[in-house]
């Protein structure tokens, strides 16, 4: 991997098994195995995806519903392991997807900061140091000592966002523009992300809104049925996408 490349996606393919009856017990498995009746209905959600994001570039991923955008994000963030090819990343990756995965409803906000921070791979020292900053940004105030099950969904989202963005990432992965919490917090979170942009973070941004991608990104790719159909500077790709969708 070259030095100036932040994310390198090499011939990635992702295969799913879409068999209609899921065989998840032993009896069925044995019977079907003996009858040679195990159906594997293969489906490639991604096929031969190959691109690079250079350091500091902001890449928009365009595509219609079901084109494989979210699968690609999951592969790049490491949740899914590609069935073919490989993904390499350089530096700290902050996937702002599924914020708050791993929150425990029985835990207080304070306890959840440490738990979710650990899930994201932070150390205890780092969390101790940034604890006040997280609480401040979330605007939860005294609610931080209340169990999470008493939170509104907006409060949970605010806490999740505040924990996930407290790192200074090298690579930021975003799914749509985050619409977290009320208007005031949305403004605040957008500013936070834009300030990360200013610091030269590498961005991978998924959206089907062309307007957002044009505003935020300088490079773009288009996915169609799991295949990469275009890549390059955002204006050029945007024209292709426009023709495709109209």
């Amino acid at each position, binding site marked *: 991997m070259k030095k100036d490349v932040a994310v390198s996606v090499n011939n990635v393919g992702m295969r*799913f*098994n879409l068999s209609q009856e*899921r065989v*998840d*017990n*032993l*009896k069925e*498995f044995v019977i079907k195995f003996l009858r040679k009746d195990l159906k594997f209905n293969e489906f490639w959600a991604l096929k031969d995806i190959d691109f690079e994001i250079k350091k500091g570039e902001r890449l928009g991923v365009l595509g219609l519903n079901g084109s494989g955008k979210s699968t690609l994000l999951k592969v790049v*963030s*490491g*949740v*899914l*392991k590609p069935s073919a090819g490989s993904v390499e990343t350089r530096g700290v990756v902050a*996937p702002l*997807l*599924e914020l708050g*995965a*791993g929150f*425990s409803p*029985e*835990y207080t906000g304070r306890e959840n900061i*440490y*738990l979710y921070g*650990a*899930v*994201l*791979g*932070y*150390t*205890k020292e780092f969390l101790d140091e940034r604890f006040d900053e997280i609480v401040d940004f979330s605007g939860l105030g005294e609610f931080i000592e209340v169990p999470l099950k008493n939170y509104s969904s907006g409060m949970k989202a605010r806490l999740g966002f505040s924990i996930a963005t407290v790192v200074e990432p090298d690579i930021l992965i975003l799914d749509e523009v985050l619409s977290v919490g009320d208007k005031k917090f949305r403004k605040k979170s957008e500013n936070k992300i834009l300030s990360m942009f200013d610091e030269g973070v590498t961005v991978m941004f998924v959206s089907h809104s062309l307007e957002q991608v044009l505003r935020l990104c300088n490079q773009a790719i288009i996915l169609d049925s799991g295949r990469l159909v275009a890549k390059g500077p955002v204006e050029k790709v945007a024209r292709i996408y426009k023709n495709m969708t109209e």
Partner: protein
Amino acid sequence: MTIKRYMKNFFRYKYLLVELVKKYIKLKYRRSYLGILWTLIEPLLTMMVLTLVFGTFFGNDDPQYPVYILCGRLLYSFFSSASKAGLKSISSNASMIKKVYVPKYIYVISAILSNFVTFLISLIVLVGVGAVLKVKVTPYMIQAIIPMIILFVLTLGVGLILATLNVFFRDIEYIWSVATLLIMYASAIFYQTDRVINTGNGWVFNINPVYMCISNFRDAILYGSPMNMSYCLTSAVVAVVMLIIGAILFCRKQDKFILYV
């Protein structure tokens, strides 16, 4: 190179392991008045019941019989509850596995480690009961740590195997609960082994690594005698083999978990 990367990844998530173990222990007793004290009260009560039934009703008048029972019960219940927790660790964390990247073995290790921590806490009961019933303090007691470590490794290996299988076949949970029952009766927790050996069925002890650990633990704590070396070696070999099988099986299948959980 890959091993180095594995280690680096493990250290990165070391703190998560600590947090998950804490969470398990904290949430287990949340909302109970006695809280963590239950780790002590529960084995004490079962010991009393077992002593009453098997000591009084079946006429075993050894004054230190409660210690005999307690040694067996503590080790067995660690093995049984930890292996069951390990078995479920992947399927019960399905929603998290689908959303964030965390090395998946962390779930299995944290499930087993948290049971090991509660097991260590519950050893306080053994110290208390031992003191009351005047168990002789001998230098051999230090050896008790060896069967404990072997049992931990064994449980981790079994846990990894069960967790992997349970992702693909949900029947494993029910099969394993019957299997642990069988292991319990074959581990001489509340009876003396000579009764079984006299009937010519002593072989069950020679194929049961859990019993071997319990027996060595009793030698160290209760009888103040050196360990049975053949038990020690056999159980250690079985434990390491299980861990290797478990680790290989888990590593090979872990990327598929997300498609099945």
